[in-house]
């Protein structure tokens, strides 16, 4: 089970609200490659792993992703403080505002609500870990795209930290996948599901 710690993984202290940025950064909470999907993906996949190192890696990274949901939510909250109605309209936040005011809602930058349809839990550890490598790359490139849109250093710093975590997770998943493949029966040259039959 889980216990909550009243602590962000990395500080988020944004002086200037900016609804335009909030509208795009929200995608890393509830979008196709966001932190909510990452957490649900890894914490769902770990049950099928026949390899302790991969179970531990998915558990620990899945848990860290829950902390990243909180960091992204903190960024959105701080970016949407004290906005006037004129700013909400001028900064293109009106469509989000009419549905959620300035509440934090997990959705994509393009407005689609969070969905489990963006990830898989196949029961095949090799397929799942291969998906996880792609997932970390997709999350990293989304942070790269966000950094192309952000000038404010207060917003950049936590986003750069989150981007770096995707790179480290990609590395760890690669090691977990490599280690798992090394444990396969030598006749299983096509790396067919080792967790079923």
């Amino acid at each position, binding site marked *: 089970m889980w216990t909550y710690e009243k602590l962000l993984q990395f500080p988020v202290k944004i002086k200037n609200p900016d609804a335009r940025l909030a509208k795009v950064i929200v995608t890393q909470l509830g979008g196709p490659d966001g932190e909510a999907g990452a957490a649900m993906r890894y914490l769902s996949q*770990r*049950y099928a792993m026949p390899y*302790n190192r991969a*179970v*531990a890696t998915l558990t*620990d990274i899945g848990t860290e992703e829950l902390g990243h949901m909180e960091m992204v939510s903190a960024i959105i909250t701080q970016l949407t403080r004290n906005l006037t109605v004129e700013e909400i309209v001028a900064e293109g936040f009106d469509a989000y505002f009419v549905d959620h005011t300035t509440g934090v809602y997990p959705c994509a930058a393009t407005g689609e609500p969070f969905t489990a349809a963006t990830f898989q839990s196949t029961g095949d550890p090799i397929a799942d870990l291969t998906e996880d490598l792609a997932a970390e790359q997709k999350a990293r490139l989304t942070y790269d795209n966000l950094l192309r849109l952000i000038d404010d250093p207060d917003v950049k710093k936590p986003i750069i930290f989150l981007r770096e975590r995707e790179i480290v997770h990609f590395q760890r998943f690669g090691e977990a996948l490599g280690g798992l493949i090394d444990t396969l029966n030598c006749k299983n040259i096509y790396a067919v599901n080792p967790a079923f039959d």
Partner: protein
Amino acid sequence: MNDRTAYTLALQQAKFTAQELALFLDTHPDCADALSAYREAIYRVDEAEAAYDEKVGPLTACDAGGKTWDWIEAPWPWQKED
């Protein structure tokens, strides 16, 4: 009941008691009786956790790491005991 099962159950009971009192205190932060019961419950959690770490294994990654990284060792909580 083997030792692992007994220490696990004792920790689950101690932690659930503390969790239930904490939840009550969230909406009754001025209740002195609940606060005193919570302090007692936390003391029992500490005792049960120390016993669990010694006899069963690390409860969290912070408790792990003797001679080897024992955090990764099975059984995981969802795996049935033999």
